[in-house]
């Protein structure tokens, strides 16, 4: 799984990228401020067989520009906007270079990721209007929701344009939770990135912890033993099962059948207590380290078997209710073409029939099978989670009973940079580290939520307003992982 790196002249970038996106997925664009020049790395992934290609373009530090790839890839356009906000690098030819994470109160020329940028800029007044697209016509009205909600959820603002109860357009305004977490990682020792990575999104501690660990190991040439690999892959599946069960309950809860939610939470609670025995932390923090990884207790096959049975019962209870099925089926459809065009990843992509799963394309262990659904509605995303939870429980049972899957080993030739690709429960997380003098010079995080947020708005077209919570829950995207 070695990374192929190509230095590319700015003028050749679009041509090379156009060739690559035919076969590869643009996983992230990472800019590096190296003082006298800026380095922009375009990471493309494909598999199986595992292939990772990086195009590197240099940009001038004073007036940094790169050619925009927004014309050939939708995700590229969003990565470029984030890069423009963070570094002030202008993607030349970008069709809609609006701020993404750039906060309205920041000075326009403040780019927090540049060297020497102060951690606390002088805040001005937020006088830039957020460009919500106004939909006009007879009977069209707007519903603004959030960022403060009636329930305890993360902050996000949603602007609905509605006729009657039918949604014509929904524009999310996110970016209320920026912590500058990537910048916090700079200057640390590589192993000290773990505590930050496990807090990128609280529900994905293993996903991000493992992804940054893989990146660090590739950058330093560290190797983990077989037991460490077993612990890592088991924890990744345990996290997947736990979060999928919570989501199964939460989706059904939004139809009002709260008994399923209550029981799902009870099952998840048992898994979290089991996780606390394995790692010392309910959210599975602290067990994975660069070069290592260990469990404090053995895996528990009878527990996984029992949970699998209980989940099946729970799903029966939910799907035997015709009203629940009526609410889930045909709601908030994300078509395969849209999903592909938007570069969607994870559960959401597979529920729309897109066969992307980093566990298969960038495997850490053998024995993982991928499943997809075709219909792309809330029902498909529900079924996808049920299926994946059961698959993961079966894997855990096998591993707990001593059947050891092959571990895919790295053949590292450390160059100070490293890439970590992990399929978490939500989707593919990509971490990239750049080391310099034993310290972290740049740490970049791409949460699957960043790729999937635009798809929610697309899936909502022609859905009715009271079904929004159901659609939103079936995506279950992270705000903190998106905003960093």
């Amino acid at each position: 799984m070695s990374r192929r790196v190509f230095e590319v002249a700015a003028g050749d970038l679009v041509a090379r990228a156009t060739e690559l996106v035919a076969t590869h997925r643009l996983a992230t664009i990472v800019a590096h401020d190296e003082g006298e020049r800026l380095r922009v790395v375009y990471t493309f992934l494909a598999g199986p067989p595992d292939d990772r290609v990086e195009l590197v373009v240099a940009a001038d530090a004073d007036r940094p520009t790169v050619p925009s790839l927004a014309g050939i890839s939708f995700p590229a356009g969003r990565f470029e906007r984030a890069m423009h906000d963070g570094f002030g690098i202008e993607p030349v030819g970008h069709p809609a270079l609006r701020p993404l994470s750039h906060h309205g109160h920041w000075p326009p020329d403040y780019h927090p990721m540049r060297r020497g940028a102060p951690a606390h800029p002088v805040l001005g007044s937020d006088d830039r209007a957020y460009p919500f697209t106004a939909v006009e016509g007879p009977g069209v009205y707007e519903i603004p929701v959030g960022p403060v909600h009636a329930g305890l959820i993360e902050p996000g603002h949603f602007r609905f344009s509605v006729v009657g109860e039918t949604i014509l357009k929904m524009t999310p305004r996110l970016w209320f939770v920026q912590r500058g977490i990537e910048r916090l990682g700079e200057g640390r020792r590589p192993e000290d990135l773990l505590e930050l990575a496990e807090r990128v999104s609280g529900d994905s501690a293993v996903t991000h912890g493992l992804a940054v660990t893989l990146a660090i190991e590739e950058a330093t040439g560290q190797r983990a033993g077989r037991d460490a690999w077993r612990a890592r892959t088991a924890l990744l599946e345990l996290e997947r099962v736990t979060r999928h069960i919570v989501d199964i309950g939460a989706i059904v809860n939004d139809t009002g059948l709260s008994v399923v939610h209550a029981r799902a939470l009870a099952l998840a609670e048992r898994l979290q207590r089991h996780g606390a025995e394995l790692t010392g932390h309910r959210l599975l923090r602290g067990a994975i380290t660069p070069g290592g990884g260990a469990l404090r207790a053995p895996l528990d096959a009878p527990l996984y078997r029992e949970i699998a049975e209980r989940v099946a019962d729970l799903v029966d209870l939910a799907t035997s209710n015709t009203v629940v099925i009526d609410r889930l089926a045909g709601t908030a459809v994300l078509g395969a073409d849209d999903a592909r065009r938007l570069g969607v990843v994870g559960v959401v992509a597979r529920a729309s029939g897109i066969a992307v799963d980093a566990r298969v394309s960038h495997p850490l262990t053998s024995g993982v099978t991928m499943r997809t659904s075709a219909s792309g509605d809330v029902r498909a995303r529900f079924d996808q989670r049920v299926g994946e939870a059961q698959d993961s429980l079966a894997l855990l049972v096998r591993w707990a009973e001593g059947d050891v899957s092959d571990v895919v080993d790295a053949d590292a030739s450390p160059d100070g940079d490293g890439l970590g690709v992990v399929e978490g429960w939500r989707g593919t997380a990509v971490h990239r580290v750049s080391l310099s003098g034993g310290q972290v010079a740049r740490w970049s995080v791409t949460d699957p939520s960043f790729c999937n947020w635009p798809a929610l708005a697309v899936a909502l077209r022609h859905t009715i307003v009271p079904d929004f919570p159901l659609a939103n829950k079936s995506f279950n995207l992270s705000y903190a992982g998106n905003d960093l």
Partner: protein
Amino acid sequence: MTRDVVSLLQVVAVALGGLLLTGLMAKVRARAEGRVGPPITQPLREVAKRLGRESPRATAGRAQGVVPTILLVTTAVAAGLVPLAGLQTAGGAGADALVVVFLLLTGSLALAAGGLATATAFGGMGASRAMALSALAEPALLVALAAFAVPAGSLSLPVMLRHGLNAPIAMVSPSHVLAALALFIVVIAETGRLPVDNPSTHLELTMIHEAMTLEYGGRDLALVTLGAAMRLGLLLALLGTLAVPWGLATSSSPLALAGGLILVGVKSTVLAVVIALVEVHSAKLRLFRVPELLAAAFVVASLAVLVGVVAR
């Protein structure tokens, strides 16, 4: 004099009972789902707590300010009028079924106007949904009441109920059972329970009743909550009394009144527990399917009238 006492007694009983029944239903649901749930007295305590607080209102909130009063007064008058504990209330034979329906409707209208007055998207959205459902529920409610009125030949509640007490066999007539069923569905819709509205949701976009009251706080919220609870208590008691009028005090002796009060409490409690248990296994209908449910209630009620008229 005694009639006034009966009415007063009923208003207090409906207010207290409504709050306790709300708490009881939450408790039953929680226990059936394997949760502990809040204590039954929780709604009572919340109202008591908020009564002592000031009410934050929107700047243009004059309409918002009178809504709780209108809701509370109309519901209280209805609760005093309907024979629940004793046959003779302050309204006498003038305690007409139509008057009760329109009193309740006035409360609904006030609540919807209050939702609009706050000038937020949710208030308007909740008001529009509530009115759309109300327009479908009211005809079913009127026709169901008419079905109960057919045997007595009068829409006056005391006359209807006295007829029922004197001819208990009528209680198992098809017309009576169908009318009770239609009224049951309407009560679920009018009190905002599953599968029409979800009383335990915190998702702004799916709400109906809650959306209209999101902008209320302090004493205003306490009064709106109390009004909604009274509505629940009144409708359950009315349904219980119309379906099974036994136990209604025909004399004005304190003993008979106490017995009537206890029995109507038992009937309402049974109904509340049944609704809560049904809710445990119910999901909320897609909003556009709710009219089908209410249309079914209307058809059942019409059938009850038809069968009743034919049997007469």
